[in-house]
């Protein structure tokens, strides 16, 4: 058990536990100590939950001692993004407003994770209320990319991606509204999965844009990501938008056989100038061809409208969802407010960071009297067109492949003063969220500067199985 958790997978931990090479408690203690030592390099964790981790680990050890099945994630150290609530463990959402918030309940995904034997090490840094693409919008300081410390880890699940890449967690939970799992996964060189909308319960995920929000796994291998999704997926009575569709056995489908699978390359994703990212993606496509996939060009003609559509819908929903932070219930209230109205206005202005305010303002504007039809309703109609693009493409192909991001991890501070450039960098990830289809990022090499690049795979609604099979086959071949 020397060194980082980096050498471990779910399987290696399981066999180590069952062969009594180490106990879950020993592994958790090691992970907590190692995490505390390594964390200053990246700022990936905001809170370590030692008590909870050790309690969970002891429960796993007790099950093993009694000869019971310790669960599919037995003893595996997991990091949880700090927008997902954990009972009794501080959950900040990366916001000053919630710096001292102790949730009174657990998110469903957290409950399922622990029931499966997973050990929650702590809560990871993120852009405030998951709004950002660089993790620079956290009230608790940015996260550094473990691969290149002068660069961003991506966002908003930057802490979760960095912890997995750094080896201070084996698995992590992230959330994705416009690319917040896949983009940091690609920047940090790990696997990140945004499941079908409704596949994983959102109960306990702090709401940003409810019609777009997803919880999903980050891991170092496709197999581990599939195992984590297996545990957290499925209908939950506490989230009426969670899907009834049965959850198939994802791992059983990882047979490496993708012969005859039809893949689409969206022309819109490969326009523009030559780049190292594009070269790496096309190299990955060659690997998939060698594995027997049939590749053809497809069209997703409404891609150029996605950023505009997204930043209307997401901000409109956010302005409504964030109205609850008014100084009444959630820990923070402006000290100087004498009247109720001032209490709302001052608490919110002092509490929210610049990006949250920008999005609340834009969302309020597009929903305000006289603008609703021109902006919000129009964006909802464009969303239909984007979803139709995918439906039509999936009549022809089984999966769509392309880049996750137009470029690899950028430097800290490089884009922070230019919100529109930051938004435009989400171009390849937001359409998947708008359509609600499953999508993921799988590492496909590094640029000459050593920066990781992610290959994005998208499949039909609820066809995570095909997505994992393709990603796993690619991972095996490289």
């Amino acid at each position, binding site marked *: 058990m020397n060194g980082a958790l980096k050498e471990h997978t779910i399987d290696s931990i399981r066999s180590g536990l069952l062969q009594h090479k180490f106990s879950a408690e020993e592994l958790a203690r090691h992970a907590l100590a190692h995490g505390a030592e390594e964390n200053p390099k990246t700022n990936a964790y905001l809170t370590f939950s030692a008590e909870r981790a050790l309690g969970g680990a002891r429960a796993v050890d007790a099950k093993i001692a009694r000869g019971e099945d310790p669960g599919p994630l037995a003893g595996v150290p997991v990091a949880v993004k700090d927008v997902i609530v954990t009972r009794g463990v501080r959950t900040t959402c990366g916001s000053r407003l919630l710096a001292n918030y102790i949730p009174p309940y657990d998110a469903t995904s957290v409950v399922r994770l622990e029931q499966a034997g997973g050990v929650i090490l702590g809560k990871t840094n993120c852009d405030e209320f998951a709004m950002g693409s660089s993790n620079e919008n956290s009230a608790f300081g940015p996260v550094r990319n473990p691969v290149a410390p002068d660069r961003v880890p991506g966002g908003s699940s930057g802490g979760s991606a960095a912890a997995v890449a750094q080896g201070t967690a084996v698995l992590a939970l992230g959330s994705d509204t416009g690319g917040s799992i896949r983009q940091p996964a690609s920047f940090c060189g790990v696997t990140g999965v945004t499941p079908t909308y409704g596949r994983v319960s959102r109960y306990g995920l702090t709401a940003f844009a409810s019609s777009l929000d997803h919880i999903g796994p980050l891991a170092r291998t496709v197999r581990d990501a599939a195992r984590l999704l297996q545990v957290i997926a499925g209908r939950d009575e506490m989230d009426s938008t969670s899907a009834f569709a049965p959850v198939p056995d994802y791992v059983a489908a990882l047979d490496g056989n993708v012969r005859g699978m039809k893949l689409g390359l969206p022309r819109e994703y490969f326009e523009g100038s030559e780049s190292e990212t594009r070269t790496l993606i096309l190299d990955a496509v060659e690997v998939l061809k060698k594995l027997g996939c049939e590749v053809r060009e497809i069209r997703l003609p409404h891609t150029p409208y996605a950023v505009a559509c997204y930043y209307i819908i997401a901000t409109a929903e956010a302005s409504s969802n964030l109205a609850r932070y008014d100084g009444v219930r959630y820990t923070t209230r402006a000290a100087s407010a004498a009247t109720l109205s001032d209490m709302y206005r001052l608490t919110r202005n002092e509490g929210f960071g610049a990006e949250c305010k920008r999005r609340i303002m834009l969302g309020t504007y597009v929903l305000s009297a006289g603008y609703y039809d021109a902006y919000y309703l129009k964006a909802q*109609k464009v969303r239909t067109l984007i979803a139709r693009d995918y439906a039509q493409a999936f009549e022809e192909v089984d999966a769509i492949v392309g880049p996750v991001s137009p470029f690899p991890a950028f430097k800290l501070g490089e884009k922070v003063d230019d919100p529109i450039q930051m938004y435009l960098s989400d171009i390849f990830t937001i359409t998947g969220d708008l359509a609600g289809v499953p999508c993921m990022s799988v590492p496909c090499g590094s640029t000459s500067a050593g920066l990781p690049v992610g290959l994005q795979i998208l499949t039909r609604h609820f066809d995570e199985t095909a997505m994992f099979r393709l990603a796993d086959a690619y991972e095996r071949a490289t």
Partner: protein
Amino acid sequence: MKITEQEVRRVAELANLALRDDEIGRMAHDLDEILTHIDKLNELDVSHVEPMAQVLYDAGETATLREDREQPTLDNAVVMANAPLAGHGFFKVPKVIER
């Protein structure tokens, strides 16, 4: 200009944000840039397109309904522990109505 500083102040009122004077100009500039980009949507004719509010799948109309039954709620003391100001199991706020 798509949006004036005066409009920014009005929207800030609606959003319950007490933006400081030095934030107004920057906000107007940023929103203007974003709204200019958003104008791109006007290139599309969407007059015969249905709006999409939610990702929906085939399911019966009553699929998401459940039986109405009694269940324990969160413990009042645990919830109130997060209140900036509480008393007797209630949230306390500045006086709303002057007597």
